[in-house]
């Protein structure tokens, strides 16, 4: 369980007392409940599960992790042959 997809908050507003927002996923926009991310602002990214944002994405942490992964990739020498020999395994 837990299909949670990152989306970009475009704007925020209230609907019947609930904090909502327009969140963009790739090229589409969906109305999303932002009650659980009260501090999320337009321009920030959130993880959305069943129409609710459940977390803000910490851009700093994301960058740090990604840089670690890139460093790992550069550590060993890159082998020349394509993965799996080019044929599906």
């Amino acid at each position, binding site marked *: 369980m*837990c299909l949670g997809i990152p989306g970009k908050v475009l704007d925020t507003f209230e609907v019947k007392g609930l904090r909502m927002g327009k969140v963009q996923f790739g090229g589409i926009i969906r109305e999303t409940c932002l009650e659980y991310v009260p501090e999320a602002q337009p321009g920030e990214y959130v993880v959305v599960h*069943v129409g609710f944002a459940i977390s803000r994405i910490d851009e700093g942490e994301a960058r740090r992790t990604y840089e670690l992964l890139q460093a790992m990739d550069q550590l060993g020498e890159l082998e020349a042959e394509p993965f799996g020999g080019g044929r599906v395994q």
Partner: protein
Amino acid sequence: MKYLDEYRDSRLARGIVKEIRRVQRRPWVIMEVCGGQTHSIVKHGIDRLLPAGIELVHGPGCPVCVTSLELIDKAHAIARRPGVILCSFGDMLRVPGSECDLFTLKSRGADVRVVYSPLDCLKIARARPDKKVVFFAVGFETTAPANAMAAWHAKQQGIENFSLLVSHVLVPPAVSAILGSPHNRVQGFLGPGHVCVIMGAHEYEELVVRFRVPIVIAGFEPLDILEGILMVVRQLESGRAELENQYVRAVQREGNRAAQRIVTSVFEVCDRKWRGVGPIPQSGYRLRPEFRAFDAEEIFKVGDIATRESPVCISGLILQGIKKPHDCPAFGTSCTPQNPLGATMVSAEGACAAYYAYGRHLKDADNAAALK
């Protein structure tokens, strides 16, 4: 898509796999708890990339699979009542009850609707004051805040024709049951990333201490899962048993407080029966007394349901990671997605269905022979 595509980068995936190969010396059995992680592993072919010594087993992280037969039969009984609109997440529609599934009921005239968000049910309830809208509220802790908000908001707004049939299950008791079983083979865990977004990490710390087993909270994209596996393997190779967080961009130690507040004001912990496993104490949520007016079990008094189970499938053993889908003689033959015998084949998230969809029903060496 940002924060998605970059975690599917093939070069970085290779880099992590190389590092896993470098670090791994002994064979290890690792379980990913979450159905979404299983799905991702099989969809991207991640386990095919791992060195042979790493065995991934799939845990009971599929709320659809583990929803008890009684509750499914109750949902069906409610859907049959005149004047009811039963709303459900898509996953639940094909899960067989004792007699049939929600799809079949729909074909017989029941008003069964797929919703994406629990709040959609409230829209329907407002639009149809003449109907009773019932929401089949399933899920792990990740979905509890959304389901809770539907109840909380309905109460606030005085929406009287809305109720929930609750079937929430909690992950830590299940992991505990697995680790406590004498047949347990699992040596390390990938923790459920989105469950921990809500609940935080402390419940898993307790498990680490109690069972001395490494748990790495992991995300869902290929790089998340691979990095999570690497972190587990590093711990196992060095004899450590700690809680680590791979999914740092989304998970905080204390979890999501705002979500926890609403969840605890709407739900309380209770015992729950897990399909294919049996009753696990204190492993589910039910509505608190203050929300009794929104409890579909109360409103519809579906009472005692006679359920029919037959001991053919080994869902339970698969859910615990003791067996693999292709260990089951029925897998891919008498048990297939369109004719499922058990919970794990029914749900798109279930280990058997994931295996079947992505084609593991043919052992690698016997492809041609196995095909009729």
